[in-house]
């Protein structure tokens, strides 16, 4: 019974915590992955558009082209990133890969697209992302008709007649309610 009230340190938890720290230190120390430099260029021929990506590995002060590396190219969309190119876009012996780019992607109002070039889960290179902007999208202009005041428009574009009608009704009815409350006050003061 007395043991129930003893506060005993939870050695098991402490042991697990120490082990976790040790493991993460080891990962850092023995990691073979090196940082990479990604260079890119936008090629716009009349017939097609391509993104040329070249990947270098930084070894000391030198840059060495990385071959046989899968590079991912994404276009930022509203909820997620859209992958562009083939399933595998692999670099050649010069570390270069060219990815064909579709010409019908909707962009912002002036056609800008936000791109992400990414290296993920590579054997010798750390995960790296590079962000770029290119004016290759189809400019999307807001349809002015959608901004018209209507029953199906947004809250800010409610029909004026409806706003006036609803508010007038509320004003009249609540005005009378307030008047009655004032009369109740006068009844009390009488």
């Amino acid at each position: 019974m007395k043991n129930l009230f003893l506060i005993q340190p939870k050695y098991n938890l402490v042991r697990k915590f120490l082990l976790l720290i040790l493991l993460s230190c080891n990962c850092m120390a023995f990691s073979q992955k090196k940082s990479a430099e990604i260079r890119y260029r936008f090629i716009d021929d009349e017939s097609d558009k391509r993104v040329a990506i070249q990947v270098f590995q930084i070894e000391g002060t030198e840059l060495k082209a990385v071959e046989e590396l899968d590079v991912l190219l994404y276009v930022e969309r509203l909820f997620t990133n859209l992958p562009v190119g083939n399933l595998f876009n692999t670099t050649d012996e010069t570390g270069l890969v060219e990815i064909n780019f579709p010409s019908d992607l909707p962009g912002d109002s002036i056609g800008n697209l936000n791109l992400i070039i990414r290296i993920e889960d590579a054997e010798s290179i750390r995960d790296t992302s590079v962000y770029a902007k290119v004016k290759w999208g189809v400019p999307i202009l807001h349809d002015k008709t959608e901004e018209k005041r209507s029953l199906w428009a947004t809250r800010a574009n409610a029909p004026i007649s409806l706003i006036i009608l609803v508010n007038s009704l509320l004003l009249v009815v609540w005005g009378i309610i307030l008047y009655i409350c004032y009369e109740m006050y006068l009844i009390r003061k009488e």
Partner: protein
Amino acid sequence: MINDSKIKQDIKSDDDKMIDKLLSTVKSPKAIFKIWIIVLLIIIGFGCFAYYRQLRFGLIVTSMRDYTSWGIYISNFVFFVAVSLIGSLVSSILKLAKVKWSYPLTRISEIIAVAAIICAAIIIIVDMGRPDRFLNVIFYGRIQSPIIWDVLVIMTYLVISLLLLYLPLLPDIALCRDRLKHISVWRKKMYKILALNWQNKPGQLRRLKKTSTILEIMVIPVAFAIHTITSWLFATTWRPGWDSTNLGPYFVSGAFMLGAAVIIIAMFFVRRSFNLQDFISNDHFDKMGKILVMLSLVYLYFNINEYLGPAFKMVGVEGEHITELFSGDYATMYWLVQIPGLMLPILIMLFKRGRQPFIIMIVSFFVLMGAWFKRFLIVIPSLQHPYLPIQDVDESYLHYYPTWEEWAITLASFAGVLLIISLLLKLFPIIPIQEYINQDKTNKEQTVES
């Protein structure tokens, strides 16, 4: 001259007796009343536990799914909104029409209206998956949406119903303050605060008459609006059974019928529990019965309108919906609602014997049950026939059987209405004393003059 003053003295002593008798309903509650309140609190407690589970695990504890997204909560909400219209029927329409026999019923109807509209407002919040976001409806709501109109009109109707109950109560609360001696301190304080320093002064009487008349007039369009807008929640949604221009008057007429039935049931039990046979007579039941027959006939007329057109054409999903009601899964409920819930009551109440207190109470109970299930039939079968069916839907989407949590919460809402009604009936005089005495005095003076 001597005779005249003697008559006046007699009238005064009669008034005192009458006041004491009418105030007797407000005295300390009996054991049976306390037991009744405890039973209601237990049901409400059980409902709160079910609601706790709904908050904890989400709306998944209900049977509501992608098809039937409005279940018995919404049908119950429509039912309570309908019941709340009784306040405007008796305390306003009959009063403005100077129907004198209805005066003893005004307080009961106003109390029922307040209790029903409070619980209607609560049940709509219960239906929300995220009640903590309720205020977003007010802050970010689109004025184009009928749901926002409904929220606005419910709040307005609640305030008007409270005022309509409270203002005519002022002279009676003052009587409680002045005449009730052996009551608890908190009740004395409450009557003192609520009486608003009422002294029967001419100025106070004038203001009370003016404000009461304004309220009685104003409540009629607001009452029509509340139920018409509730019907628009359905009519503006494109579903079979709801796509109808008839829906507004159909809902309003159904609400008046239900309200009249509810007041008859309330009259029966109030008269019995508080010994008010002298004030709520058999004649009241007879007259309310006639009103109920008239309102039921109007509702029957709208029912025929509502179903005849689509049933004659039997087009597409609308036809499927009608078939489901007439001979499908919901046929038993549909015909029970139409025959014992509407047609038989009309037939029974057409005869004088059918308007006897006990019989009409039972008949009204059938009308009430029919009205509740009618709301179920309006809401649920329509939702199970969407115009854009989902492919490979889960089996649970196709049927709707409320879970115990939904039933518990619904029962708790009924218990909530009964609790509010019981407490208000016990705290305030049931028969409007001042009005009753004035009416009585006028009658006696007319008799003396003649």
